[in-house]
């Protein structure tokens, strides 16, 4: 791979605006999809705080629950939920393009692979909710 050079006199390189992704809806959706990863990392961070609180004892856990209910944290988590959902939907919709399955010499239709992903999503969600909410 060649190294990046800031300027090369023989190449024609038109300047592209940093806002190139606002020019088309598809570009904007692409950047939104990539941005979802920031909120994925944020959920990982919240989970670390939750583990820390449970480890520290009942009072610390009560404080963590209180913190979850403060308006700024709720707002950030609501926004994060929208992005995480967007990530899930775009991820499952791309799954048939990322993996081509063949059964008996025939390609499994895209819709079947996507449906299997969505079914797995529902099943995993139900299982997690059951495990987290039972006493």
């Amino acid at each position, binding site marked *: 791979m060649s190294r990046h050079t800031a300027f090369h006199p023989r190449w024609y390189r038109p300047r592209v605006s940093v806002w190139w992704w606002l020019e088309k809806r598809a570009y904007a959706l692409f950047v939104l999809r*990539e941005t979802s990863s920031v909120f994925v990392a944020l959920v990982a961070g919240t*989970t*670390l705080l*939750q583990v820390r609180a449970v*480890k520290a004892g*009942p009072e610390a856990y009560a404080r963590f629950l209180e913190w979850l209910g403060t308006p700024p944290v*709720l707002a950030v988590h609501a926004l994060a*939920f929208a992005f995480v959902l967007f990530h899930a939907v775009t991820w499952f919709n791309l799954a048939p393009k990322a993996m081509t399955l063949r059964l008996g010499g025939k390609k499994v239709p895209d819709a079947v692979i996507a449906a299997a992903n969505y079914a797995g999503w529902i099943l995993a969600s139900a299982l997690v909710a059951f495990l*987290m*909410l039972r006493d």
Partner: protein
Amino acid sequence: MQKATPLLWLLFSAGGTLAALLYPVHLALVGLAIPLGLVEPAAYESLRTLLAHPLTRLYLLVFVSLPLFHWAHRFRYTLYDGLQLKHLTPLIVALCYGTALVGTALCAWMLWTV
């Protein structure tokens, strides 16, 4: 760096699948339903018991670590392309994967010392 690329794509893909399957339900419960009072949070004692189980801790390590690498990989390329920062590649790579590594180490340590 070139040699690590397939591994980084694998981590990206595994983390993306895990986040797609499990993050919406986790965040819906912990971030929204519980604080809004839509569902009762589990009693502290039962969470403590759950956390003490080795399988729970293994689950949580994977749950935190893989999506952090997913973020690192995606965010790295978004910074390059979106903000045209190709000349800062070594710095961006170090910051992104470094954060994922530190997060993983921190999580492993927290779960090990439960």
